């Protein structure tokens, strides 16, 4: 059972109150311009990161809002949660696994979608 901090309610609550919202920062391609490959990538292909994973959660039985989360998918430790539209905060305590094989490095921050 994860303990997740809702950045809107500003409180840590059990996972049961939340719904997982999938990988974050997926940007829908322009329907007038996108190729088959771009659509395929958007619809089906995922980073599936082993290590620091950027994802969304929804405080389903709380405030009902979606928010962003960085979580280590090896230890399941939640590094930080933050509101939509906010720039990703720096993770103050890096993953104990950082630097070991198989852990993806942090991707460059392009700013998370509101």
């Amino acid at each position: 059972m994860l303990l997740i901090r809702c950045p809107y309610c500003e409180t840590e609550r059990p996972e049961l109150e939340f719904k997982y919202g999938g990988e974050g920062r997926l940007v829908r391609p322009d329907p007038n311009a996108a190729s088959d490959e771009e659509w395929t990538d958007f619809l089906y292909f995922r980073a599936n990161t082993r290590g620091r994973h950027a994802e969304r959660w929804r405080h389903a039985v709380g405030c009902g809002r979606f928010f962003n989360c960085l979580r280590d998918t090896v230890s399941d430790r939640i590094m930080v949660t933050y509101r939509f539209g906010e720039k990703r905060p720096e993770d103050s305590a890096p993953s104990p696994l950082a630097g070991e094989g198989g852990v993806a490095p942090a991707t460059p921050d392009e700013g998370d979608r509101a």
Partner: protein
Amino acid sequence: MKFSFASIARQALSGHQGWPEQWRSPEPKPAYEAMIVGAGGHGLGAAYYMAKEHGCKNIAVLDKGWLGGGNTGRNTTIVRSNYLWEASEAIYGHALKMWPTLSQELNYNVMFSPRGVMLLAHSHHDEFAFKRHIHANRLVGTANEWLTPAQAKEFCPILNIDPGIRYPVVGAALQRTGGTARHDSVAWGYARAASALGVDIIENCEVEAIRRDASGAVSGLETTRGAIATKRVGVVVAGNTSVVMAMAGVRLPLESFPLQALISEPLKPVMPCVVMSNTIHAYMSQSDKGELVIGAGTDAYVSYSQTGGLHIVSSTLEAICEMFPIASRVRMMRNWGGVVDTTPDRSPIIGKTPVPGLFVNCGWGTGGFKATPGSAHLFAHQMATGEPHPIAAPFSLDRFRTSALVNEATAAAVAH
């Protein structure tokens, strides 16, 4: 050494002290004709069929841990083939046809027990979906039949068919040719048979990089036990597929989730079949040791932790206690998780990748064990000839671009 009555008798006379190692543990050679990454049932089996049916003599199987230590050793051992689409029926049916003779084929007892797999329907919608599956299965010659609640209880006497429970049983789909097999034996049997045919099985050897030549084709692997040259690599690593394929810059339509199972204290025989319910995320069978083997649904989030939330198994046990009131005071001994690689259409991916010489067999999600012999056999064809076997052709990676998906979300049986 061949297992036979005579060999057992001879060993009995010497107090069973003379059994040899079942497979060799060689040092890696500098180069191989082809290499398979991942020594689970699917990978070891592929190496076995490559050696036996395609004459590949200089091949190796690598694993970062010990063989059979991933999902092969963590699943709930269910074997069935009652999927919806013809392409699925062909691929799972290919495996189901191989199970009954696999012990003889490998000279190793995989304890295949076709005791019947019963999928419970709890609603009008379930009934519709299952009857559709039954009709589709019968059209392609796969046995699958509809049972009333009373017939379901006759087949599995400990089933609760009281219409007043939270999720009443309104019927069931029964595949009598399905059942269970001994998961570890499948890995060990393939390892032993492949090793006897000259396949090098290299354990505790993790792949660190995939080398490519100037044209972009695979030229070798860098591992924790040194660099090894090869022109063909098959990646069969289930939950870690995205991680290994990223070494060659290949993205995949996969997400890895924890899938949990648990096992009870041993009981006398109480359960003659496998019962599954995807509506309430639970399935159960009884092992030959007497333990109740129980499987849950996946956790909600991407994770490589090989564990999962206790609330997932807790809700599974609530469902089990309602379906099987006899289990309400049974103690659970162990609970564990595996990491399953799920695709958007819940069907596997077998075949080529955009990188020449790099092949993948993945995406079996929550139900790969049942397919082990068939998957291995088809992937061996892909690895040895470079082209997909006709049965595996619909399961290409390219189907996500062409939208020729094989949607088995209902048949997958595990909620995710």
